[in-house]
């Protein structure tokens, strides 16, 4: 088709729209991530508390939000909550749904990280008369953070990718913009392709950024695997499907 040569050109002329959509994606994702972290930390503490009622309530929340589709959670937040007297804008409903969903996963991730600290160390700390605060901040936290850091970063990326569902509640984030540009230009491959590339760039920025941050704050450095890499096997570009096995001969 003679349109093909100007296809990418036409779509790229909408770059402003795509970037404003990307900005909304980033805004809603960051906001949701912050709230999800708070939910995760409080929820993990509740799950480890000695009060059974706290453990049960948070347990039910985790089960519901991990075992139902995110899209349905988004619809309930946007279309269902107003019926209960809580009208949210599409941005707010999207942030709430994403935060509630990711928060459930983070509760389990953080709880697992805390539980992974060998209980023998807690006993030793008690024997050495360390205060509870000191025990937590100097013994438990440094070890737990090493365990939870890669899955938490991964959850952040999942939030960014999950934000594409918010196009269904008319939020003009990146996927919504791609749909609109597609319906205006009818250049499906280029419109959605451009959005895919932008998502890929954002995911890579998060991965690489978290690797760098991890290299700075973790001594010794974290082992390779998940979204972090050890020294000497650093992944600078995450290309889906090619980064499975570490290659010992060449770098990437």
């Amino acid at each position, binding site marked *: 088709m003679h349109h093909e040569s100007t296809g990418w050109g036409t779509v790229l002329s909408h770059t402003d729209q795509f970037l404003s959509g990307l900005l909304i994606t980033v805004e809603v994702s960051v906001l949701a991530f912050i709230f999800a972290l708070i939910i995760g930390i409080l929820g993990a503490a509740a799950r480890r508390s000695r009060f059974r009622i706290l453990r049960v309530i948070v347990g039910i929340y985790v089960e519901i939000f991990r075992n139902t589709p995110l899209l349905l959670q988004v619809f309930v937040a946007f279309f269902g909550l*107003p019926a209960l007297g809580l009208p949210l804008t599409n941005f707010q409903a999207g942030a709430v749904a994403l935060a509630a969903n990711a928060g459930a996963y983070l509760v389990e991730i953080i709880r697992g990280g805390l539980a992974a600290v060998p209980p023998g160390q807690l006993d030793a700390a008690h024997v050495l008369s360390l205060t509870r605060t000191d025990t937590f901040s100097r013994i438990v936290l440094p070890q737990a953070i090493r365990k939870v850091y890669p899955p938490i970063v991964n959850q952040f990326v999942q939030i960014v990718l999950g934000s594409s569902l918010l*196009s269904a509640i*008319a939020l003009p984030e990146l996927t919504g913009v791609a*749909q609109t540009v597609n319906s205006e230009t009818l250049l499906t491959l280029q419109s959605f392709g451009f959005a895919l590339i932008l998502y890929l760039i954002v995911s890579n920025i998060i991965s690489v950024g978290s690797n760098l941050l991890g290299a700075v704050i973790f001594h010794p450095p974290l082992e390779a695997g998940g979204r972090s890499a050890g020294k000497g096997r650093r992944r600078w570009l995450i290309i889906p499907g090619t980064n499975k096995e570490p290659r010992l001969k060449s770098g990437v």
Partner: protein
Amino acid sequence: MKKLAITVLAAATALTLAACSAQPSANSGSTNGAASSSGTGVVAQIKSRGQINIADCLSFKPFGFYNSSGKPDGYDVDLANLLAKSLGVKANVVNVTSDNRIPYLQTGKVDAVFCNFTITGQRAQAVDFTIPYVVSGEGVLVRKSANIRSASDLNGKTVAVTKGSTNAQAVQAVAPHATVQAYNDDTSAMQAVKSGQADAFIEDLNFLTYQASQNTSLDLLKTTLGAKEYNGWAVQKGDKALLDYLNSFLRKVTENGQSLKLFKKWFGAAPLYPLNYTTSDPTSGLDLVKTAESSNG
């Protein structure tokens, strides 16, 4: 173990490829891409396949929707079944939305698009339109509690539209300061207005008249936005054989009153703008639209 897995995968791939190429040539012909499908054989292909694939928006009651038994139903679907019967085949109605109906057609997943598809010059560059099957306009559905009396009252209010439809552009023209929410389909947009997320919904007049009659909290404004809309059926660009067949079918069911009977069944009244094929033999909806516009202007 690894070698065994590779061998099994290779064998499975080879079998799948062999099975695909063994399918009747009618199927592979219908899944050709946007390249011109050379016209003449398409109707014969549909007949040999035994079914015609028609895209309809099944979130657009009473044009197209899923009835209580989960089957597609509505004005468009009844016409599709009538068309299939005249061809001697079955009708396979595929659910699409305003923003993916053209890609579905261009990639050959469907033979024709119904879906209350408004004929515009821009869309006519991508698809070929039949003569109109419904004439309509853009109406404004409002929540009674939103205090909207005219189109200019929409400024500062939230207006729901559907992606890929003519409504989105219509809002910008009359109320540039309205907040526009673009939904994937009409059901979501209706849901938004009913739940209060949006104050108004701009859509096809016939559709909104029906929706207003079903919802006491919603009202239809007396004004319509923009010009009359001629909604036709679309086929792949260059598919002249199917286009001619659909045109003669539309003329037939309009002249013998079958389409009017179906319209009254679904909408409860005769159409606001009756069909009037008086222009001398247009070959497509675009010709009719252009003639009508020049005679109005």
